[in-house]
Every structure is written in C-alpha cells, then in structure tokens.
C-alpha cells in the first residue's frame, strides 16, 4: 500500500505537503516539519529526497495504524 521510495507518487506527496487533511497527530506534525524544512532549504533536490525518506519511513512503520490517512494520500 505504501509506494516504494522511487515512486512518482512521492514527488506528488512532497508537492502537495500541507494540502491533504490527514487526521493522525504524528502525521500532521511530521508533514508540517517537512514543509518547514523544504521552505528553509529552498526546495533543494537533496531536501526533497530527505523528506521523502523520512515520510516513507514513517508511513511504513505506521502502515497498520493510520490506514485512512495513507488511503487519503496515496489512494
């Protein structure tokens, strides 16, 4: 259910950060922090990769617990 890290769905995820109404507290905080990081690092390719890696790790580790948020993000 979680796309692999090199899937174009993650590019979409990063571009849409802050627009998908997730419900989980950790997801909200993580995505806010990632958005701050991207803004601070001027959306650099390296920052985008780091954000994707962190988000991927979070969603994989919580796949069973936040299924509704995952479905909202990835369909």
């Amino acid at each position, binding site marked *: 259910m979680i796309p692999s890290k090199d899937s174009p769905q993650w590019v979409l995820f990063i571009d849409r950060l*802050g627009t998908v*109404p*997730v*419900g989980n*507290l*950790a*997801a*909200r*905080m*993580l*995505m*806010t*922090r990632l*958005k*701050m*990081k991207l*803004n*601070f690092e001027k959306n650099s390719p390296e920052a985008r990769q780091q954000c994707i890696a*962190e988000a991927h*790790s*979070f969603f994989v*580790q*919580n796949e*069973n*617990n936040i299924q509704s948020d995952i479905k909202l993000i990835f369909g």
Partner: protein
Amino acid sequence: MQSMMAIEKASQLIREGKCLLISGDEKLLASLPAGNWVGGTSPYFMTEDGGLSTKDKVQVLEVPGFVSDVTIRMYRVEELSSIPDDYKPNGFSYIIVPAFSEAHQVFAHDCSTWPGVFNRPLLGWIAGIDLADFGRVSPKVFNGRTGESSSSKTVVLHADLPADKYANLNIINLFTQSDGDTITFDQSGFESSQCFVNGERQSFAKYIKTRNIDTKLPLVADYLGALVNVSFQGVDVDADKVTFYAPVFPGVEYKIAKPVGEYAAEFRHQIEGKSIDPMFTCNCILNYLYAGLEGKKTGHMVGPITFGEIAYMLLNQTLVYLTFESK
C-alpha cells in the same frame, strides 16, 4: 486504583514488580525502592478528585501488563538525538525532561529534526518544582531501576506492545487561533525581539503592550489541524524582549489564541461522548494556575501537572494523553 497514594503504598506496588510512572516531591521519589519505574518531580497533580498540590503523596500510574520489553535509560544531552534509535518495534516511549536544564532547551529546539522521532508515540513531560521553591531547588528525573536521579539528564522508558495493539498519542488543546494578526518569526528560540505582524517587521514586546494583549493566552500555530501552543513567559518592553515557555520557529504562522470560557467545563464538554481510557495524561501548570484547576476535575483524565507537555515535541497549555487501541 486511586492514583494518589502514600509512599508506602507506592513502595509496595514497586516491590510487587509493577511497571509504574510516578510523579511527586523529590524527597518522596528518592525514598522509593528500586524497581520497574520512572519518575519526575512535580507537586501539582490532576487527580480523581480534582487538581491538587501536595508534597505528602506521589501519583502513580500503572503501565498495563500487556506492555513488554520495558527498557529504561538516562540520556545525556548529547545523546538525546538517539532516543528514536531506541524505539521498540511496536511500542511507545515515555520521556521526562528536567525543566530549566540544557536538555529542556535542546529537546524543545531540536527534537522534531531527529530522524524517526515521529515513527513511534513519544509522550511525556517536563518535570518541575513547587513554584514557591523557585531558585532554591531544581527539578529531577528518576530511573527507578538504577536509583539514579538527575537534574540534567533525561529519563526515557521504552516499551513494546503485542502485535494486536498499538499506542495512540493525542492532545486536547482548548485554545484556537483568533481571527487577528498573523505573527511570524525569522529565528527560532525561547525569546524574541522582532517579529513580523502580517509581514511587517516590528518589536514584539511593543506590539503586545500597545494592543494590550492578554499574555495568559498563548500563541497558537496550526500544524495541519493540530493546534500547537507557545505560552508567554514574560514581556519586557525596556529590554525589547519577549520570552516563551517553548520555542517559536521560523516558517510557522502564529496567532494569539481566542479566550476560553470556564476551562474545566469546556474540557469536560470536549471529552464527553468520547470513550477515552488513557494510560497516561498530563496537563500544563499554566492551565492549572490560569484556569484555577485546584479542586476542579478534567473529566476522568488524571496525571501530573507539568512545566511542559511532550507529544513528539514540546507543547504548552495542552493536555497530552496516550491510549492503547486494537489493530
């Protein structure tokens, strides 16, 4: 089990091998036998009978028996960023940080940048002191297994859960953003001189004073629907400085909070109809003082009253709670 108890009863539970989260006066915590517990100092509690201030009893919250593989560790400041490395595969981690310590500052500033910090519930609180003792005693945290206590280290209890359960960490924040000015900062920190009000740079202290802003109301940031407070500590127009109980961050839009009515009543209204059975809750000393919570209940939510709350990051004027859910 009533959460508040005499030291003898707490000692008995420890000797029975229970895994316990304990808060109370330093002298009481220091007298407890070694065992499966962690502790932090606070003389303020939310109890089954309402808010209470005491140095004669400790508050004991029991970790359920289905929790396993409990490890307890003290972290030095330079080790804090490794806390997520010690997360259990399916568990949660319970952290207590001494107020006024370098650890308090470092945690508040940096925790959200630690890789993996959001991957498991990280809940806890900032240990405090009796406000009447300010400047004379320091907050402490305790590793019950080793007997070590510290005013500079951070104690964390890491625990795992069976495959059919997971830990769910949530907050209840009665404060919402007002419709007024948007305030931003270009530097992070527990203090600020300049801010941007609707994009215009100005002195934050002067802004607060000229608009007669009630600093019992926190700044509120919207983290994609999670409302995160930063509480005011002080405003000094002469020094052109505003201090906070949590850091502000650049890139975050803050608004002054809307006033809340009668806190205890509004709190009960928020949780009524919801089936919440938390293992642990904590609430802020500022809510306790400003809302006059001594003797008043916040529903069935009991736990220490703290100098900061932790739900993945440092929070202010917020109730944090942890429940266990079935997969």
